[in-house]
């Protein structure tokens, strides 16, 4: 994907630089753009592994009863699917790939504040990922606890839970260091004249995200260490038979893992906020409202974790308080949706693959958000808690939201990153299949959940078979679409038309430099005088 482009224009970041050639040149480069590409390749691989595991589960669930894999294998599959998708794909996701590549360029900097630390973060990510892969093999089999590692089951399970937990612990450090790097970069390295309120909105969303990464991740780190200590030395933190408290585990776990949802979705919102103005050729509507809503989501998002525990036996007052706070956090998300749609008003809209992924992001994010309201309300939560309704809801946010924003981002910035245009026709066909497959796969799960189908079930009662059947068909359609999309991108990176510097007529700084960008991005020092979205 990277070798053929060196002829495009001399001095591009894709050309050999430093003392090593080929793959070693990539593995030792501290260039933020190369590190972004390293993350992209790893995340692509892990994403496809996660998709495959999901696909096998849907195949098993096509009909009731045991078909291809047994219950223990199935339990391992949904656990590993969760660990890979959450800790190795969506949490690093947009921030590590597009944040690394575009944050310095969009604020007019030559690199991040700590380039070596940046490369180190990637190596930590690789070590964590390797441990996670290792946990699947050997010992007493793949972990079977679900990605949430709920105690006391995670304390009792004989499978490789310790290794899997250790992997999540190590991956956390990568996330913390990337967050720290971005905070310092944004504070210290903005171009001359780029005041806080002249900074583009994708960097703003990364800024809000980075604070969550730095402040929340240590909590899950210490929690996972406690699980390891309890499994190894039988110290009673969480297992009541050792004198521990299982509810304490859930609090500690969700204090991080709920904000982690915002680590995923805030950069996704940032991407969409870049794309909509560009393809509408219009100044973004409500710049300050969008900035403030990002900060509000990051802030209030800390205080809503208890809504994962409405049926846990937590005190009745806590249930009420967390329900209240959950409804508050819905507001800044709604503000963003209104501003995106308002930005389209009287614009000059170009509908291409990038824009179609962005529009489907907004549509699916609305469904994910609105179904979150029934989960936030106490009475309705009790019925659908821990059912397929929840599975549908978070896939609409995490995949329909963050995943689709990732697809939008890779199409949007593809010409800049690889110096070539993607094939528009194949891109649109891929989008149509991905979108239909997604809807077929996840929408029936809302109905299944309302009918009372609990999640993490290897087998199900006959009354749920219709929904499962449609959902499985959707999975195969979706996988077909993903294959077409990935094929198109790989093919275009080699054979696509050469891309101009500014193919979409964007206004942010990355469109002012050649495609692909030169090693240190800008030849001269950048001076910013205008607002980032000043269309004339």
């Amino acid at each position: 994907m990277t070798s053929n482009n060196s002829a495009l224009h001399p001095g591009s970041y894709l050309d050999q630089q430093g003392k090593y050639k080929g793959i070693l040149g990539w593995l030792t480069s501290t260039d933020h753009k190369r590190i972004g590409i390293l993350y992209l390749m790893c995340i692509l691989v892990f994403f496809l592994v996660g998709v495959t595991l999901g696909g096998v589960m849907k195949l098993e669930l096509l009909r009731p009863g045991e078909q291809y894999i047994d219950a223990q294998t199935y339990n391992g599959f949904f656990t590993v699917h969760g660990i890979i998708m959450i800790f190795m794909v969506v949490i690093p996701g947009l921030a590590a790939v597009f944040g690394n590549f575009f944050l310095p360029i969009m604020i007019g900097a030559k690199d991040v504040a700590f380039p070596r630390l940046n490369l180190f973060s990637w190596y930590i990510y690789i070590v964590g990922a390797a441990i996670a892969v290792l946990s699947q093999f050997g010992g007493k089999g793949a972990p079977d606890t679900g990605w949430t590692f709920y105690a006391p089951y995670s304390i009792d399970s004989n499978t490789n839970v310790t290794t899997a937990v250790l992997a999540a612990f190590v991956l956390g450090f990568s996330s913390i260091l990337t967050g720290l790097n971005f905070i310092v970069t944004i504070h210290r390295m903005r171009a001359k004249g780029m005041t806080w309120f002249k900074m583009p909105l994708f960097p703003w969303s990364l800024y809000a995200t980075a604070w969550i990464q730095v402040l929340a991740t240590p909590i899950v780190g210490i929690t996972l260490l406690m699980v390891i200590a309890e499994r190894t030395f039988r110290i009673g933190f969480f297992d009541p038979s050792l004198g521990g408290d299982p509810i304490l585990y859930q609090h500690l776990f969700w204090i991080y893992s709920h904000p982690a949802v915002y680590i995923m979705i805030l950069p996704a919102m940032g991407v969409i906020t870049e794309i909509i103005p560009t393809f509408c050729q219009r100044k973004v509507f409500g710049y300050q409202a969008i900035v403030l809503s990002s900060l509000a989501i990051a802030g209030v998002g800390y205080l809503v974790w208890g809504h994962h525990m409405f049926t846990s036996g937590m005190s009745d007052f806590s249930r009420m308080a967390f329900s209240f706070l959950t409804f508050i956090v819905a507001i800044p998300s709604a503000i963003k949706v209104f501003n995106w749609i308002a930005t389209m008003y009287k614009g000059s809209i170009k509908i291409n693959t990038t824009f179609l992924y962005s529009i489907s992001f907004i549509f699916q994010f609305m469904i994910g958000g609105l179904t979150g309201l029934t989960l936030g309300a106490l009475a309705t939560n009790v019925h659908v808690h821990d059912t397929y309704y929840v599975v549908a809801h978070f896939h609409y946010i995490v995949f329909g939201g963050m995943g689709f924003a990732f697809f939008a981002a890779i199409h949007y910035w593809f010409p800049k990153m690889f110096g070539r245009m993607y094939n528009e026709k194949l891109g649109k066909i891929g989008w149509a299949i991905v979108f239909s497959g997604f809807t077929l796969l996840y929408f029936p799960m809302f109905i299944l959940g309302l009918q009372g189908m609990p999640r993490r079930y290897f087998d199900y009662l006959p009354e749920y078979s219709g929904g499962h059947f449609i959902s499985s068909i959707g999975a195969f359609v979706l996988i077909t679409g993903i294959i077409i999309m990935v094929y198109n991108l790989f093919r275009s990176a080699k054979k696509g038309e050469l891309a101009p510097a500014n193919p979409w007529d964007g206004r942010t700084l990355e469109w002012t430099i050649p495609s692909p960008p030169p090693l240190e991005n800008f030849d001269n020092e950048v001076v910013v005088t205008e607002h980032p979205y000043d269309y004339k």
Partner: protein
Amino acid sequence: MFQGASNFAKGVDSAFFFIFAISIFFLVGLTIVMIWFMVHYNRKRHPKAEQIKDNMKLEVTWTVIPLIIVMLMFYYGYAVFKPMRQVPDDAMVVKVTGRMWNWSFEYANGKISNELVLPVGKAVKLNLFSPDVIHSLYIPAFRIKEDMVPGKDNYMWFIPNIEGTYEILCAEYCGLRHSFMEAKTRIVTEEEFQKWFAEETPIVPEDKGLAILQNNACTSCHSLDGSKLVGPTFKGLFGSERLVMENGVEKTVTADSTYIKRAILEPDKEIVKGFAPGMMRAYDKVITEDDIKAIVAYFESQSKLPN
């Protein structure tokens, strides 16, 4: 699905209806606006964008109106939920134990059943217990769910108001046979219930050993009829020759009383060939010495039955 089979069902369903109605209004409305913009302001039709200034009044409007709406949703959800935690004084109490991987229901008179039989129209309080990991008692038709957390006393209550049989499911992932952890609740008339309640329970077997096996959910994984579940069947166990793996070495042992005791206390030591290790917990603090004797006696009595 939407049969209101308990006193809470109607309230919960109307809360769903309220939130869904508003959600669908916004989803459909905003989607139509979005598509209309895409058609009307398409570059072919509208080649030059008009720059619009930010509008503070608009921002405030679409902050305040949704805020009011979600506060109503919060209140509605809370108001319907609140009575779920306020148990009436005259509620009949049933102790529910959920364990890996079955349910048992113990009534005030000591009667133990694996089916929850209740009189229609009468309040019942379920006290929820788990001896091992977290389970969650879920009756979809009644719109209720609450976790059973080891070491913690949780409860739920409801009034079943339509006669019939409904599914009880486990909603919190609890391991290998989580999706098979099912039971039924049978809602009957007061007279039928009293008759059932007073009856000697037919499901508690005369043999104490079998009762212990069932109450500890042994029979969820080890069948009595020869079928292969998670573990080897109990049928024809006593006195049989067993091919087992001990530390990777194959050997043959006779299933006598010491073997059975070992298999209960240290299940991973010798694994019957063809089965996976690590599936069964050690029962060293759960099943007492006397209980093991009763279990062995039961197996012995079974082996003497004519085939």
